[in-house]
């Protein structure tokens, strides 16, 4: 069974969120900075035009015969018209007395000194205006007098330009954010890629592949890989130990059993008394039962171990079954049971050959063991590309009324097993093998009604 890992968070998601957060913050700062800069530049250039206009008006002021005359140059106002369609206001005054222009134009709050223009943003007739005021000292009738020139313009055009520029700044910010998001996703992906490829390399391994992980990994992952390798080492040692143990246990149990059984057979040949012969026969049967049970328990342990992590290879089910039939033919011959093998189609599948062999052998063993002498056993293999199946039909009397599903439970035996040595594990093993391969085991009464037909069915791929 594969246990799911306990998941808490995701490195990739965490990294991605952090990078996206930083990108958003940087984009906002960029937007604000650019917007401020653009606004400053626009204001400065507007101011300098206003100032140029005021200067050119100032230049046209002359003193003629003790009078101040202003000859407003056309260019002074038209240069402002070039910037936008905003309305332009002006005022020329001397010592607070308006000489020409808009007398209700608000006066600036700051004190104006000669040569130092003052720029202000003011309200005039419900509209915002930008106004420059500059001053010049003239000599009038021998006395110095201060002439002030103010030029103002409404800010509608300016606002429109600013709006356009700030939209551009917004696009710039969004573009920056999108680009950095893409980069963030890419970098989050690429930083977890070594982890992913390590995980794939480990999970692709066969159950018998216990070599250490040698694939190069980033230094941060080195401790993980080295503890994984230690773990694989330990697993290898413990697997070898348990396989050795099973082999050793079998050897220890079966060799003395073989001695006892052989001696009992010899003695049976020599003794004449019917009671003694009966006891000896019972002894031999008990030995057979012990050895079969121990064998199947070991088999069952091995099968459970192997089904946990299947080692799949391409199997020709027909070839596998044919080999088994040949192997069991001498045993069947002892009871003059004929084994008939038939194959139709190409029953190819992928699976663990040793397990499949074990499953088929258990079923075939049963068929031979429970059949009376001189009966027929049919082994039919077929395949249609989608499924590979092997069915074994005997004339052993069938399973009677025993629940056919219960037969595949551990240690449950059918009704026809009186007097036959068995452990009740054979069909369990066969079913577990079938299910581990995504297949099924079905037990039914044979068509002739004389016995059972057990079918193993595996998906081809």
């Amino acid at each position: 069974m594969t246990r799911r890992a306990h998941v808490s968070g995701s490195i990739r998601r965490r990294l991605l969120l952090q990078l996206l957060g930083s990108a958003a913050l940087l984009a906002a700062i960029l937007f604000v900075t650019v917007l401020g800069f653009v606004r400053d530049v626009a204001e400065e250039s507007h101011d300098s035009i206003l100032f140029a206009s005021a200067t050119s008006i100032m230049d046209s002021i002359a003193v003629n015969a003790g009078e101040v005359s202003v000859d407003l140059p056309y260019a002074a106002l038209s240069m402002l018209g070039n910037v936008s369609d905003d309305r332009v206001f002006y005022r020329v005054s001397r010592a607070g007395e308006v000489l020409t222009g808009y007398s209700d134009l608000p006066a600036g709050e700051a004190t104006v000194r000669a040569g130092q223009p003052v720029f202000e943003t003011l309200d005039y007739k419900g509209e915002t205006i930008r106004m420059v005021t500059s001053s010049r000292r003239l000599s009038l009738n021998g006395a110095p007098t201060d002439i002030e020139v103010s030029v103002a313009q409404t800010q509608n055009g300016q606002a429109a330009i600013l709006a356009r520029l700030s939209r551009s700044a917004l696009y710039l910010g969004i573009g920056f954010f999108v680009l950095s998001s893409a980069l963030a996703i890419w970098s989050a992906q690429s930083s977890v890629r070594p982890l992913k490829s390590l995980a794939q390399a480990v999970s692709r391994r066969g159950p018998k592949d216990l070599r250490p992980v040698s694939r190069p990994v980033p230094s941060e992952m080195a401790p993980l890989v080295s503890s994984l390798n230690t773990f694989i080492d330990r697993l290898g040692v413990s697997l070898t130990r348990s396989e050795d143990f099973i082999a050793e246990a079998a050897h220890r149990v079966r060799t003395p059993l073989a001695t006892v059984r052989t001696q009992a057979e010899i003695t049976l040949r020599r003794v004449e008394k019917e009671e003694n012969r009966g006891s000896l026969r019972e002894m031999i049967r008990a030995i057979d039962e012990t050895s079969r049970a121990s064998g199947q328990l070991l088999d069952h342990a091995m099968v459970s171990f192997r089904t946990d992590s299947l080692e799949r290879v391409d199997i020709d089910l027909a070839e596998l079954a044919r080999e088994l039939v040949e192997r069991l033919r001498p045993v069947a011959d002892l009871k003059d049971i004929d084994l008939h093998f038939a194959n139709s189609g190409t029953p190819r599948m992928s699976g663990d050959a040793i397990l499949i062999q074990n499953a088929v052998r258990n079923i075939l063993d049963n068929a031979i063991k429970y059949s009376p002498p001189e009966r027929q056993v049919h082994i039919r293999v077929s395949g249609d590309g989608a499924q590979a199946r092997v069915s074994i039909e005997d004339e052993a009397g069938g399973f009677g009324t025993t629940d056919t599903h219960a037969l595949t439970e551990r240690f449950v035996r059918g009704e026809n097993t009186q007097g036959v040595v068995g452990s009740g594990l054979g069909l369990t093993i066969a079913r577990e093998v079938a299910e581990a391969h995504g297949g099924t085991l079905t037990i039914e009464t044979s068509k002739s009604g004389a016995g059972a037909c057990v079918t193993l069915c595996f998906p081809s791929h």
Partner: protein
Amino acid sequence: MRFLLVEDNASLAKAILDRLRLDGHVVDHAPDVQSAEDFAATTDYDLILLDIMLPDGDGRTFLKQHRDRQIETPVIVLTARSEVSDRVGVLDLGADDYITKPFDFSELEARCRAVLRRRGGGSSNERRFGNLRFDPMAGTLSVEDQTISLRNKELRLLEVFLSAPDRIFSKAKLVDRLFSYEEDVSENAIEVYVGRLRKHLVGSGVEIATVRGLGYRMSLQ
């Protein structure tokens, strides 16, 4: 037949030797790989019975060397391993067959017979009695020019009788020899096989007589 038994467990080896000799076979015993090689180099055996776990090495090493030297003697491996893990790879290494301990001797005999038949050897084992020629390896019985194939139980019954002509075999003994201990059979089942064998023996000058209350005896007419 001449066997070489390679088995390190002394009591099991003795039991197998006794059992094979009881059937009239000639058997040598090698307790380790070294002596097995010595025996195999000096004597021609019909069959080698080989244990896998040996004190001075693995039976598989012996098997491999045996095959590398192109020695054709068939080998049957005696294994105590579980059926799943065995498959042993011994078949790949050149063993002809294997049998799991503890084994039924009639199964071992059947496997030996099958191996020898596959190898096409064993015509030297032909037995003659009266007019009949019997090849236990091929399982054929010839009376004059007529050759028939015997079924397994008939063959083994004939073998038992031919092992000691003129001796009386009780039904109980014949049951022991013919049926495995797993099967519940009545002694009357023997009558069926004796009846069949009698039919095959017509014209051979050999008869199977019923000795009332004692059993059966095969003798020349």
